[in-house]
C-alpha cells in the first residue's frame, strides 16, 4: 500500500482514499459551498453517495446503515447550517452508542472566526454531541485524523465522531501516508473483563434461585447474540431484552420473556422485581427501564457487564462489576459456567424451575393487550399483522411514541439488528431516514418503516430520496390523528386537556406517494388490513400505507413516570369515562 505515498493528491482525494480504506461503500450527505472540492473529487470515486433531502436525515440514514450492519455509518454536510442540521442525529447516535463518522466542511482557515458566510463553530457546537470531534488544520494530519475518527467511532463504547475540515484543507495538495498506528494516549478501551470477577459471576449465576438476564443494546453492539444465547441455554435462564436490545435473544427462544420497563410486559417487570439476581449485559439501567430506582429489583444482586466504566454504578451499584466487551466477557463467562455445570447445575434446579413456572404464570396472567374491533383498526392489530407477515425476519424502524412502543411490544425479532429505533434520544422523524440507510445496507431485507403521523411528517422530504433510489421500503403510517404519546399523557395526567396534540390535515397518502412516483393508499377498516399489507409487501418499489387507527387508544401496561415498575397501570376493562 506504499504506492500512493508518492502521488500528490488534494485533501478531498485523500479523504476519499481514507474512506475507501475504511471500507466505506456508501455514505449519506448534502453538498454545499465549502464541500465543493470534496464533491468534485467524489465525481471520480466508486464510493456511492446518497443525496438526502435534509442533513439531519443524512445522519439518521447513516445510523440506520450502522444499526443494520454494525459497520461505521458515514454522513457528510457542509459548514454552517449543514453542520448544525446534523446535531440531532449526532446526539441520537451518542445516546444509543451507534458508530458514526460525520464529515463537515468548514470555511477557509483564514476566515474562521470572522463570521464568514455559512460559518458556525461546528467544533464547539458538536463537542458534547459526539464521542469525540476533530478539527483538521493541515492536509498533512488529515489521514491520521480520519482513521482515528473511525477507530474511536467503532471501538469501545461506539459513538459518533465528527471531523470538521476547512475548505482550504480539501484543496491543499499532500500525500496519503498509510497510518500504521494511532496516537490516542488518553483513549482507554477495556475489553477483556476481570477473570476473577467473571469466575465469581459464573458462580453467582449457578447459585441463584431466581436469575434474570437483562440484555441491552450493548449485546447488539458487541455482536454477542450467539454468546448470549449460549449463556441462556445453560439452564434456560429467563431473559428480558431492553428496547435497544430487542432481538439480542431471539423472541422465539423459550426463555425469552419480553421487554421490561415503562411499557414493558407484566411478566418482564414482575420478573425484574422478584429476581434474586440480575445479569445485566450491556445495559445502562435507564430510567425508562428501572422506574423508581430505590425499589427497582430490590431483592436482586447485580452482575453488571459493560464496556464503559462510567456506566458501572451510575444508577445501580452492582455486586459484581465487570468492565469489558460483552462478547469477550460472555465467552469467558460461558467457559466458567461450563466448568461448573456438572457440579452446580442440579443444586438450584428446583427453585429455578419454580421461578420459570412463576414467570410463565405471569405471562399467561397478563399478556400484552391485543384488542380487536370489527370496524376500526386497533393499532395493536396493525402491529400484530406486521409481526405475522415479517415472521421475525424483517427490519423494522420506528420513531418515538405510541407506535414505537406497540411495535416493540408486539413485533417479534428473531435476530439482532432488525429493530431500529431512536431509543435514548427519542427523536421524531428518525424512522424513515433510518429505513433508507438500513435498506441501502441490506437490499436483501424486507424493511418496514413504521411511523406515527407526527414523525412521518417530519421526514416527508426523504420520500424523494427513497423514490430516487427505488428503495422498496414499506412505509406504514400508524395514523391516529394525534401526537399519540403526548395525547396519552394529557389524557391520563392532565385531565384530558388536549393541548396542541391534534394533527389535522394529514396529506392524502395515495396522492402524496403518486407525487413522488410510487404507490400509496389509506385504509381505515380492520378487514382491509391484511390485504393492504400484503399488497404493500408484493409491490416491488416503495409503498406508503397510511393506516387510520383508533385515535384514543393508549399504550398499556404503563408505569407512571417515577413509579415502581411493579406498579403497572393496565388498560381499563371498559372504555374509561374521561373527566
Amino acid at each position: 500500500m506504499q504506492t500512493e505515498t508518492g502521488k500528490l493528491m488534494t485533501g478531498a482525494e485523500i479523504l476519499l482514499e481514507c474512506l475507501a480504506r475504511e471500507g466505506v461503500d456508501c455514505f449519506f450527505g448534502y453538498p454545499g459551498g465549502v464541500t465543493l472540492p470534496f464533491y468534485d473529487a467524489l465525481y471520480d470515486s466508486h464510493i456511492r453517495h446518497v443525496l438526502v433531502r435534509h442533513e439531519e436525515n443524512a445522519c439518521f440514514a447513516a445510523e440506520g446503515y450502522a444499526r443494520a450492519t454494525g459497520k461505521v455509518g458515514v454522513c457528510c454536510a457542509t459548514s454552517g447550517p449543514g453542520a448544525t442540521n446534523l446535531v440531532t442525529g449526532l446526539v441520537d447516535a451518542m445516546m444509543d452508542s451507534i458508530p458514526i463518522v460525520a464529515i463537515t466542511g468548514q470555511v477557509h482557515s483564514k476566515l474562521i472566526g470572522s463570521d464568514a458566510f455559512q460559518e458556525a463553530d461546528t467544533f464547539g457546537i458538536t463537542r458534547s454531541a459526539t464521542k469525540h470531534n476533530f478539527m483538521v488544520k493541515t492536509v498533512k494530519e488529515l489521514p491520521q485524523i480520519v482513521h482515528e475518527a473511525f477507530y474511536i467511532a467503532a471501538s469501545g463504547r461506539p459513538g459518533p465522531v465528527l471531523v470538521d475540515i476547512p475548505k482550504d484543507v480539501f484543496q491543499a495538495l499532500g500525500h496519503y501516508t498509510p497510518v500504521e498506528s494511532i496516537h490516542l494516549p488518553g483513549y482507554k478501551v477495556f475489553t477483556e473483563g476481570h477473570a476473577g470477577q467473571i469466575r465469581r459471576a459464573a458462580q453467582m449465576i449457578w447459585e441463584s434461585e431466581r436469575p434474570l438476564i437483562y440484555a441491552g443494546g450493548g449485546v447488539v453492539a458487541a455482536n454477542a447474540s450467539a454468546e448470549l444465547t449460549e449463556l441462556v441455554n445453560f439452564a434456560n435462564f429467563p431473559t428480558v431484552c431492553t428496547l435497544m436490545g430487542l432481538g439480542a435473544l431471539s423472541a422465539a427462544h423459550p426463555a425469552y420473556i419480553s421487554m421490561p420497563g415503562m411499557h414493558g410486559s407484566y411478566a418482564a417487570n414482575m420478573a425484574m422485581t422478584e429476581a434474586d439476581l440480575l445479569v445485566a449485559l450491556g445495559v445502562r439501567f435507564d430510567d425508562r427501564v428501572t422506574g423508581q430506582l430505590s425499589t427497582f429489583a430490590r431483592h436482586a444482586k447485580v452482575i453488571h457487564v459493560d464496556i464503559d466504566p462510567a456506566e458501572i454504578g451510575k444508577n445501580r451499584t452492582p455486586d459484581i462489576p465487570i468492565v469489558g466487551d460483552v462478547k469477550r466477557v460472555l465467552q469467558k463467562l460461558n467457559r466458567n459456567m461450563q466448568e461448573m455445570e456438572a457440579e452446580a447445575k442440579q443444586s438450584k434446579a428446583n427453585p429455578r424451575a419454580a421461578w420459570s413456572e412463576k414467570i410463565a404464570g405471569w405471562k399467561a396472567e397478563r399478556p400484552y393487550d391485543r384488542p380487536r374491533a370489527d370496524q376500526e383498526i386497533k393499532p395493536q392489530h396493525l402491529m400484530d399483522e406486521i409481526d405475522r407477515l415479517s415472521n421475525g425476519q424483517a427490519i423494522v424502524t420506528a420513531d418515538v411514541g405510541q407506535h414505537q412502543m406497540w411495535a416493540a411490544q408486539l413485533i417479534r425479532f428473531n435476530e439482532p439488528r432488525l429493530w431500529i429505533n431512536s431509543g435514548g434520544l427519542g427523536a421524531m422523524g428518525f424512522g424513515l431516514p433510518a429505513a433508507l440507510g438500513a435498506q441501502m445496507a441490506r437490499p436483501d431485507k424486507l424493511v418496514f418503516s413504521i411511523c406515527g403521523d407526527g414523525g412521518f411528517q417530519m421526514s416527508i422530504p426523504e420520500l424523494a430520496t427513497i423514490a430516487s433510489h427505488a428503495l422498496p421500503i414499506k412505509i406504514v403510517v400508524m395514523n391516529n390523528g394525534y401526537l399519540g404519546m403526548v395525547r396519552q399523557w394529557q389524557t391520563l395526567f392532565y385531565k384530558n386537556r388536549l393541548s396542541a396534540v391534534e394533527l389535522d390535515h394529514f396529506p392524502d397518502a395515495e396522492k402524496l406517494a403518486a407525487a413522488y412516483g410510487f404507490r400509496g393508499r389509506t385504509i381505515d377498516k380492520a378487514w382491509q388490513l391484511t390485504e393492504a399489507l400484503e399488497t404493500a409487501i408484493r409491490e416491488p418499489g416503495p409503498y406508503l400505507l397510511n393506516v387510520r387507527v383508533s385515535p384514543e387508544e393508549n399504550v398499556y401496561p404503563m408505569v407512571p413516570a417515577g413509579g415502581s415498575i411493579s406498579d403497572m397501570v393496565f388498560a381499563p376493562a371498559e372504555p374509561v369515562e374521561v373527566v
Partner: protein
Amino acid sequence: MPQTISLLLENKPGALLRVTGVLAARGYNIESLTVAKTLDPELSRMTIVVDVEERLKTQVIKQMNKLINVLHAADMDETPSVIREMVLVRVRCSQETRTAVLQEAGIFHARVVDSSVEGFAIEATGDPGKLDEFIDVMRSYGETDVVRSGALSMSLEAKKIRLQPPVATPLAVSTI
C-alpha cells in the same frame, strides 16, 4: 465541601473545554482551575477545584476519564497529596503600619515583590486555607487588591509519577 480533581490531558485545542464541559453540563461552578504543560510538552496538568455533590463525584471523574484527550483524572481528596496556591496581595498602608505589615508577611513566609510609598505588593504561597488567613490579616491594615492562582495539586503516591511519554497503540483497523 469542594473537591480537588487533578487531570493529565493532551495539550490540544479544545481539551480544556471538554473537561470543563463535563462540569458545566451538570451545572457545577468551577471554583478554581490551573493548567500548564508538563515536562512532556504534548501533555498538560490541570487542577480543578469544584463543589460536586458527593453522590455524583465518582461519576464526574469517570466521565472525565472517558474523554479521549484525558489520560487520567483523579480525586485528590482520596489520595495522599499536596495542595498549594499562590496569592499576590497589594496592600495600601500608612507610614506607621509599614513595619507591622512586613512582620506579618514574614510570619506567612511571604515575599515583598514591590514597595512604594503607598504600600506593598506581596507574594505568598501555601495551603489555600492559610492564604485566606493571610489575606484577612492584610485587609486589616488597609485597602487590598488580591489575585489568587487557584490550587495546584500533586499526588504523593509514588506510582502516580509519570516519567515516560505515552506509547502509540497499534491501529486495529484491518483495512489499513
